[in-house]
């Protein structure tokens, strides 16, 4: 038996998300008294693979094939399900990010395994196997029982504490015999920004809404985000108007994020917006209307004009850095 975790890589590297996943898998494995096996697909060197041991992976199986360079969910699911069979996986753990959402449902059908999608905590019980997840876009939570023999869990990003076990992993380079006819996705063109902090990875996010008044007013918001080492985001009307790029749109119909700190400036706090940020650990709202609904979701609030409050916050952060 094992808990199998799929650890995606980004240009051959793992990131915090990967270590969260392995830590979570280790937590589940401890509950059912078994070990964690990690699966990596792509060109990742041994030094990088070994890192997973530090978070609780006992073994890391690496499959590196030219044909699997781009994500083809059908082929990826074939690889992972075969390894799940070989390792007698009782539970599979994937991220609830784009890749996990593409692959986990296919594994479900291949392995006849029920999915607990978007979990943020360890199972509350393993018999019956019960997980807790947000439903109705954050307006409620549900305890869901997975009845199948094999279970699949997809973990929300930034929801589980990374935990170093100090262990070492055995590395296996698997010579996987891929059925190439499964790879049907042809990648024709890629456009990608490198080096920029991804909104979904950011631990601090400063976000602006229509209350920012004009696309020309964003400089202090961007400056505050940069000072804090965070990323910038926005509400839907702001991206619809073209004030900010679409990648920044957060909410039910945009990105769903869970940073440690979310600072909402000039955002009214419509349910559809809050649906995308309600899992943030701490929400701070700046709004000139003391009755704005955003304050119902915020832990800290400032009632004031964004254009006056932002420079004040920037000054205050700078002062803490120099003192």
């Amino acid at each position: 038996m094992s808990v199998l975790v799929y650890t995606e890589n980004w240009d051959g590297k793992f990131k915090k998300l990967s270590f969260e996943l392995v830590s979570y898998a280790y937590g589940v494995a401890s509950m059912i008294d078994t070990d964690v096996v990690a699966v990596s697909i792509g060109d990742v060197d041994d030094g990088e693979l070994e890192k997973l041991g530090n978070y609780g992976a006992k073994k890391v199986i690496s499959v590196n094939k030219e044909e699997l360079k781009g994500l083809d969910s059908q082929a990826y699911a074939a690889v992972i399900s075969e390894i799940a069979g070989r390792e007698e996986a009782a539970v599979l753990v994937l991220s609830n990010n784009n890749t996990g959402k593409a692959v986990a449902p296919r594994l479900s059908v291949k392995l006849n395994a029920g999915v607990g999608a978007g979990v943020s905590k360890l199972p509350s019980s393993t018999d019956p196997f019960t997980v807790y997840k947000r439903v109705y876009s954050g307006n409620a939570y549900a305890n869901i029982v997975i009845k199948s023999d094999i279970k699949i869990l997809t973990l929300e990003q930034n929801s589980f504490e990374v935990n170093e076990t100090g262990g070492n992993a055995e590395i296996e380079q698997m010579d996987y015999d891929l059925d190439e006819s499964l790879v049907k996705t042809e990648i024709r063109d890629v456009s990608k920004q490198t080096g920029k902090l991804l909104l979904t990875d950011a631990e601090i996010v400063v976000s602006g809404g229509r209350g920012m008044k004009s696309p020309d007013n964003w400089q202090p918001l961007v400056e505050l985000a940069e000072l804090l080492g965070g990323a910038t985001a926005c509400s839907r009307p702001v991206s619809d108007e073209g004030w900010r790029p679409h990648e920044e749109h957060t909410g039910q119909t945009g990105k769903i994020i869970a940073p440690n700190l979310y600072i909402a400036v000039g955002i009214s706090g419509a349910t559809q917006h809050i649906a995308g940020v309600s899992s943030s650990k701490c929400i701070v709202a700046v709004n000139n209307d003391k009755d704005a609904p955003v304050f119902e979701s915020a832990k800290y609030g400032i009632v004031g004009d964004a254009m006056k409050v932002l420079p004040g916050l920037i000054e205050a952060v700078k002062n803490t850095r120099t003192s």
Partner: protein
Amino acid sequence: MKILVCISNVPDTTTKIKFTGDNELDTTGIQWVINPWDELSLTRALELKDSNPGLIESVTVAHAGPASSEPTIRKALAIGADSAIRVNAEPLDAFFVAAQLEKVITEENFDIVLCGIESSDFNGSTVGGMLAEFLGYPSVSAVSGINIENEDIVIKREIDGGSELVSVPVPFVAIVQKGIAIEPRIAAMRGIMMARKKPIKVVEPADVNALTEVSSYEMPPEKEACKFIDPDNPEELIDILQNKEKLI
């Protein structure tokens, strides 16, 4: 080519969610709508049909749900879908729904199957991928655009930090998200009139077991009231975030 749009029937996101007892949604006062993503994928499917006459023969919607979801299906017909299929079953879980949709699709041979990235009720993000696997079709996830030029279908998908243009052979499943269409098409009076005459084919469900079930619902944890900070004292907020919350 024939396009199928899978639609789920969900409470409007602004309606207050309540439960009766532990595990039953209180449906009083709920406004049911087409899941926002499905409304957008239907919009895109209709745009593709309009701009590729001859190539796209029809746009059908499919829904697994009881007769009470027919108003939502009618709405899709009013927006412009040519026909609809309803699997007459309570949607027990994603696996069950995907298995039902598989049956519908293998019987009618659709070339392009569109699913949304998530239903706003269970936020599962799983039906589309499961369906593709049941069918043995390739699928593309995180789809933010579909274009057809000279019969060549090009799909845009989002990746971390950017996007890719990809293609897969038909038949395929595309799992769509933001970008697929900007504003949903709305039903015009004529569409509403015509929808009354369009066929909804009702099929009986296949015998499939659900793999998951809800044992109970909970409301979100109570939140403390917001602590307001004097706008003339931003230092206080920064001090709290740094020293008390230890976030910066």
